C-alpha cells in the first residue's frame, strides 16, 4: 500500500500536472486541493505524498462537530449520580478530590459542598442509557449514538481547553482538526471550502470563540476553516457589489483573464495561471454557497424535525440543518460552536434554556442523516471542552447552585461514521468526580476520529521547523472498543 501511495504521488509531479491541465474551469484549484503541499517549498515532500489520501479504508468520509462551547455540565445531562443528591451539602471527601488543581475561582473557597442534579433522569432505548429530562429529543436517539462518559483533558480554563481539543495542544498556532483532515484527505467538492465553521450562541453565560480554533497553523491556508455566517454575506466578501449581476461579473472576469494571460506571456510565471484559476473558483463559490445556504427548499417534515428555529438564521438549529447540507455537498469538516454552557452560578435556570436550544436540532441532525443513508459515512460529535465539578461553586441553596470547571471527566457523544451505536462507554465514580473505568484522553479521542476517516494519527504528520507535528502531539491511542 505504501509503495502504491508513493508511486501515485510520483506520477503527480505538481508542475507537470498543472501545466498539462487544460485551462478548464477550476483545474488548478482542484489540482492543488487534491495534492495539497506535495511540492511544498518546491521539493518533493515524501511525507506529503501520504497526504491527500487515506492510509487505510475509511469508515467515515466527513465530520460534523457540534461543539458545546463553555463546557456543559455532565451531571445535568448524561452522567446520572443519585448519590450526589443524597449527599447534598456535604463536603467532598479529600480522598476523592485528591491533589486536583482548582481554578482560581474556587481555589479559595472555604468549603466544597456536593450537589446533586435538580433534574431527573430516565433510561431509554435498547441501550438503557440514562438521559436527563432536559434532553427529551436526544433521549429518543440513544440507540443511534455512543455516549462516552469518561473523557478527560489536561486544561482547566476555557481558552487552553478549547485549543487543546481542537488542535491537540493548549498553546496556539497548531492546525485545527478540520485543517488536518483537509490536509490529509483533500477535497471532495470543488465549489465549497473543505472546512467550514458555523457559530451560534445560547442565553447562558458565554465564553468567546477564537479564530485560532479553526486555524491552518503551519499548513497551507487552503486548509483554514472558512467561517459561514448568517446574513447576506455567508462567506466574507462573497457578494458582488450592488448593481453587478452574474453576467457582468463574468464579463469582468473574462477581461481580467485576457489581461492576465498577456502578463503570463511576458513573465511565464505559473503563479499567474494559478491566480486566474482562483478567480474562477471564487466565481463558482458565489453561486454554490448561496445555493447551499438556501433552506427554502427544505420540506415541511425537515423543518418540523429540526424545529421552527431552524428557519431563523444564526441559531443552533439553523446551523445544524446547514451542517447537513454542507456535509451532503462534500464538505469534509463542518465545525459548529454553540456558546453559553459556562454555568458557574445560576445553573438550573441557565442550563435548562441551553439544553432546550440544542436538544431537538442535535437529535434531528442524526435522524436526518440516518434517513438519507448518510449517517454511516458521516461522523457526528457532540460535546464541550471539559466537565464540571460535583461540588458547588458559590452559594448552595436548595434550588440554586453553580459548578466550576472540571478536567477529570466529562461526557460527549458520537454518532455514525463507524462508531458503535447504542452504547455507553466509560464510567465515573459514584460522585461523578473521577473516572472509574475506560478513560479517554483528548488525544485518544482525536486518534479515534482520524482512524474513522482512514488516517493513522501517527502517520498524519507535517514537518515544520524541523519537527514532525501531529494532531495528537506525542500520545493518543485509538479507542477500539467504540468502533464497530
Amino acid at each position, binding site marked *: 500500500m505504501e509503495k502504491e501511495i508513493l508511486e501515485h504521488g510520483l506520477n503527480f509531479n505538481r*508542475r507537470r500536472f498543472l501545466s498539462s491541465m487544460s485551462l478548464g474551469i477550476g483545474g488548478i*484549484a482542484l489540482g492543488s486541493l487534491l495534492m495539497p503541499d506535495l511540492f511544498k517549498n*518546491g521539493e518533493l515532500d515524501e511525507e506529503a505524498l501520504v497526504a491527500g489520501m487515506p492510509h487505510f479504508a475509511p469508515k467515515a468520509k466527513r465530520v460534523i462537530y457540534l461543539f458545546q462551547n463553555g463546557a456543559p455540565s455532565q451531571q445535568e445531562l448524561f452522567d446520572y449520580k443519585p448519590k450526589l443528591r443524597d449527599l447534598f451539602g456535604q463536603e467532598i471527601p479529600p480522598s476523592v478530590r485528591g491533589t486536583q*488543581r482548582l*481554578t*482560581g*475561582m474556587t481555589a479559595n473557597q472555604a468549603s466544597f459542598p456536593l450537589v446533586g442534579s435538580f433534574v431527573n433522569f430516565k433510561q431509554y432505548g435498547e441501550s438503557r442509557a440514562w438521559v436527563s429530562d432536559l434532553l427529551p429529543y436526544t433521549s429518543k436517539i440513544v440507540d443511534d449514538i455512543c455516549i462516552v462518559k469518561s473523557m478527560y483533558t489536561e486544561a482547566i*480554563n*476555557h*481558552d487552553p481547553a478549547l485549543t487543546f481539543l481542537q488542535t491537540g495542544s493548549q498553546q*496556539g*498556532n497548531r492546525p485545527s482538526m478540520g485543517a488536518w483532515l483537509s490536509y490529509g484527505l483533500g477535497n471532495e467538492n470543488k465549489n465549497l471550502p473543505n472546512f467550514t465553521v458555523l*457559530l451560534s450562541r445560547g442565553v447562558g453565560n*458565554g465564553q*468567546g470563540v*477564537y*479564530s*485560532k480554533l479553526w486555524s491552518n497553523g503551519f499548513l*497551507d*491556508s*487552503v486548509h483554514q476553516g472558512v467561517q459561514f*455566517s*448568517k*446574513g447576506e454575506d455567508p*462567506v*466574507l*466578501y*462573497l457578494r*458582488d*457589489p*450592488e*448593481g*453587478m449581476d452574474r453576467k457582468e461579473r463574468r*464579463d*469582468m472576469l473574462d*477581461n*481580467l483573464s*485576457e*489581461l*492576465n494571460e*498577456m*502578463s503570463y506571456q511576458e*513573465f*511565464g*510565471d505559473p*503563479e*499567474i495561471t*494559478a*491566480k*486566474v484559476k*482562483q*478567480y474562477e*473558483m*471564487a466565481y463558482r463559490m458565489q453561486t454554490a454557497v448561496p445555493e447551499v445556504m438556501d433552506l427554502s427548499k427544505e420540506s415541511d417534515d425537515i423543518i418540523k424535525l429540526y424545529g421552527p428555529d431552524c428557519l431563523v438564521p444564526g441559531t443552533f438549529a439553523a446551523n445544524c440543518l446547514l451542517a447537513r447540507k454542507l456535509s451532503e455537498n462534500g464538505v469534509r469538516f463542518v465545525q459548529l460552536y454553540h*456558546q453559553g454552557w459556562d454555568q458557574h452560578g445560576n445553573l438550573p435556570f441557565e442550563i435548562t434554556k441551553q439544553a432546550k436550544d440544542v436538544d431537538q436540532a442535535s437529535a434531528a441532525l442524526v435522524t436526518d442523516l440516518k434517513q438519507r443513508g448518510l449517517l454511516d459515512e458521516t461522523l457526528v460529535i457532540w460535546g464541550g471542552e471539559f466537565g464540571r465539578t460535583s461540588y458547588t461553586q458559590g452559594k448552595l441553596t436548595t434550588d440554586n447552585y453553580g459548578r466550576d*470547571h472540571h478536567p477529570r471527566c466529562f461526557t460527549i457523544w458520537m454518532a455514525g461514521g463507524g462508531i458503535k451505536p447504542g452504547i455507553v462507554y466509560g464510567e465515573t465514580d459514584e460522585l461523578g468526580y473521577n473516572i472509574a473505568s475506560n478513560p479517554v484522553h483528548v488525544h485518544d479521542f482525536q486518534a479515534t476520529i482520524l482512524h474513522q476517516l482512514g488516517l493513522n494519527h501517527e502517520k498524519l*504528520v507535517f514537518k515544520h*521547523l*524541523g*519537527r514532525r507535528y501531529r494532531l495528537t502531539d506525542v500520545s493518543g491511542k485509538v479507542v477500539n472498543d467504540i468502533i464497530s
Partner: protein
Amino acid sequence: MKSPIDMRRTLLFLTVPCLALVFQCRTSDSSNQAKEEKVPEEISYNFDIRPILSDKCLVCHGPDANKREAGLRLDVAESAFQALKENPKAHALVAGKPEFSQAYLRITSKDTALLMPPPSSNLKLTQHEINLIEKWIKQGAKYEKHWAFVAPKKPSVPKVEQEEWPKNEIDYFVLQKQEQKGLKPNEEADKERLLKRLSLDLNGLPPSLQMMDEFLADNSPKAYEKMVDKLLKNTAYGEKMAIHWLDLARYADSHGYQDDGYRTQWPWRDWVIHAFNQNMHYNDFVTWQLAGDLMPNSTKEQLLATGFNRNHKITEEGGVIPEEYRIMYVTDRNDLFGKGLLGVTLECAHCHDHKYDPFSQKEYYQMFAFFNNVKEVGIESVIGGPETYAKKPLMEISNEDVKNILTFVNKQDTSRLIVSVMGDLDTTRKTYILKRGVYDAPGDEVEPGTPKSILPFNNKYPKNRLGLSQWLFDKKNPLTARVYVNILWQEFFGKGIVKTSGDFGMQGELPSHPALLDWLASDFMEHNWDVKRLVKQMVTSATYRQSAVITKEKLAMDPDNILLARGARYRINAEFIKDLVLSSSGLLNKTIGGPSVKPYQPAGLWEGATSGRGLLSVYNQDHGASLYRRGMYTLIKRTVPPPTMGIFDASNRDLCEVKRLKTNTPLQALVMMNDPTVLEASRVLAAKLLQEKTDAKEKVAKAFRLIVCRKPSDKELGVLTAYYDKQLKTMKPETAQKMIAVGEYPLTKNVDKKTLAALMRVVSTIYNLEETITKS
C-alpha cells in the same frame, strides 16, 4: 564550503532518467530506481550526512539523554566510534569500513527486527541516503561542527567570468554559482517595474506618478541609486521595515486570551518606526528592546523600547492559576529570543533535551532565567477599563513627555497613556528546570547561562538581560548577524539564503549560498550593524535588479529560483495591498503612528465571537480620515484578527513569526473583487479622472499607470477601453446609482453617475490584475 544539497537536486533532476536506466540494467537490489541520485565525489558531513542523521536517526540516537536508545549517539563522533554498550566488540562506525560499521549494517539489514530506523518509527532511509552514508564511512566518516554554530569568517569575493555584470560583492557570489551550473543572469528589469519593486520594498507603497516620470527621464548612471536614497529617506521606510519586526515581536492591540481585552501597546510600535527611520543600528535596536531598562542612566525612550518583551499574550480569564500563566509569559520571551534573534528552535528544549540540536533542557532554563525576573504576575486584572490596557510593570507617557522626549509618539489626546514594559524584581527570582515543562514541577535550580554549543556565556557580562544582549552581539556569536541578514534577504528576495529563517539548527535548511551569507554577516558586523547600509547593498545589487521573466529553460532547471538567475516575483504583503489601493486612488492618509484604527470590516465578526465583555466586544468602525490609514495601523484583535489581513497571510500575532506564508486562494479573489475598500478606491479614482480634461483612453491609461505602476501596452489599453465603452453603453442609471454608493468618502459633484460607474468598473478590474499586487 561544499555546494548545497538543493543545487545538487536541481542538477540531478535533469539526469534522473538516464541514471534510472543505468541502475535498472546494473543491479537488482536498487528497488528505488526512480529516486536514484548521483553521489558526489567528496561527501560533506554538514551538507550530505548531517541532514540525514538529524532527520532520521537523532530522535533516538541524539542529544536527548532521556530518549537515547542503546546509549548510542550519532551526532557526536566520540560516541559513534566507541565500542557499543550492547556489544563491546562492535562499533557503530568504523572509519573507512562500512562493512564493519554496525550503523551501516543495520540500515541495510534485510531483517526487519534489526533494520534501522525501525519500521515502527515510520521513518525510512532512501537508497540514495544509504549510498551517501556508505561513501562517507569509506572516506573516513569525518564529523564537522554544525555550520551555523561556527562563527562566520569573511570569505574573499569569488572570481567570475562575466566580469561586467556584478555591481557589488553580492553579485560575485551569486554569479559564481550560476556559472558553475551554466546559467546566465537575466537582463536588468525595465525601469518602470524596477521602480515599483524598489518602492514597494523600501516604502511599502507604489511610486507616485512624479517619481515614475522623474526616474524615466533620468538617464544618468546614478539614476537608480538616487531613487534608492530618496526612498530610504522617506518616513514610509520606517513603516515598511517595522512590519517584519512587528511579526517577530508578536505586536497586537489586544491581550489575546479569552475575552481578549484592548491594550495600548502602540507607542512601542511608534518607537519601532522611529528607530528604523533614524537608522538605529541593529545592535542598539535590539539591546534597547531586550534591556533598555537595565542600561546605565536608562532613558524613557529606552524603557519604552522594552515594550518588545511585553507584547506577548496576557490572560484576563478569571479563575486561572497565576503561576501557570506567568511561566507562559517567560516561556514566550525565551522562545522568541531563540527563534527571532538566534534563529534556533530553543522551544523544543522546554520539556526535554532538544531532539536534534545540542541544547539541553538545563540550558533552556538557563536562558529562561534571564527573563524570569520580571516584576509581573500571571493575572493582574480581569477585563475592564483603561487601567487594564497595560499590565505592570508599566510606564506612563505624559503629554509633557511627548512634547520633549518621546516626540515620535503620536498621542492624540490628553487621556492617561500606559504601556507595558520590562522591569526586574529587586531580589532575584529563583529559576528551576521545569520537569516536562510543567509550571508546578520544579527540578534543579539553575543560574542564568547560554547554550555552550552556540557560545558559552562570558562571565565578564552581568548575569541579566543586559549581559545577554552583550552575549548576543559578541563578535564570536555565530548566529545573530547571520540570522538578521537572512531575514532582510528574505524581505527583498522573497526567501532567505537559509529558507527556514527561524531554524538554523540541524533540522533547518542548508544555506543556498553559504559564502554569501557569511560575507554579508561579517560585513554587517564590520560596519557596526548598520541596517540601512545593508538594505542599500541588497537593493543596489545586480542580482536584485534583474527582470523577473521566467524562461522555460530556467523554470525547468531552477523552478524555485535558488540560483537567483532572475528577479524575485512575489505577491506583496497584506498590509501593502491595502496601501497600494489607498495610495494609487489618492485616499491614503499618511499620518504616522498613534492608536490603531478600525476601518471597514464585515458586520458581526467581533460580535459573533465574543463573550460580550470589554471594549473590543463590539466593532465600532471608525469614520473619516481613519478609514484611509496604512494597513499596518488596522487594529489587531488577536482572537478575531482583521479578516482581509488574515486572508492574505498576515501573522495573527499569537507568537513570534519570522516568515509569512505566501498563498493564493479564492478568498483572496473575493476580497479584491468585493471589499468596499477596493471598490471605494475605484470610485474615488474614477471620479478624479473624470474631472480631468482628457479622453477616455487617457483616463484608463492613467488609472493603469497609477495602479500597475507602468504604462499599459496598446493591447492592454485596447481591452480596457473596449470594456469601458461596453459598460458605458449598457450601464443603467439605477445600477450606476447602486454601484457608486459604496464607501463613506463623499461623492464628487458634477460627475455623471453612469460614466462614473462605468469607469469605476474598469478601475476595479485593474485592481484585480495579478500584476497589480505583485512585485515583478
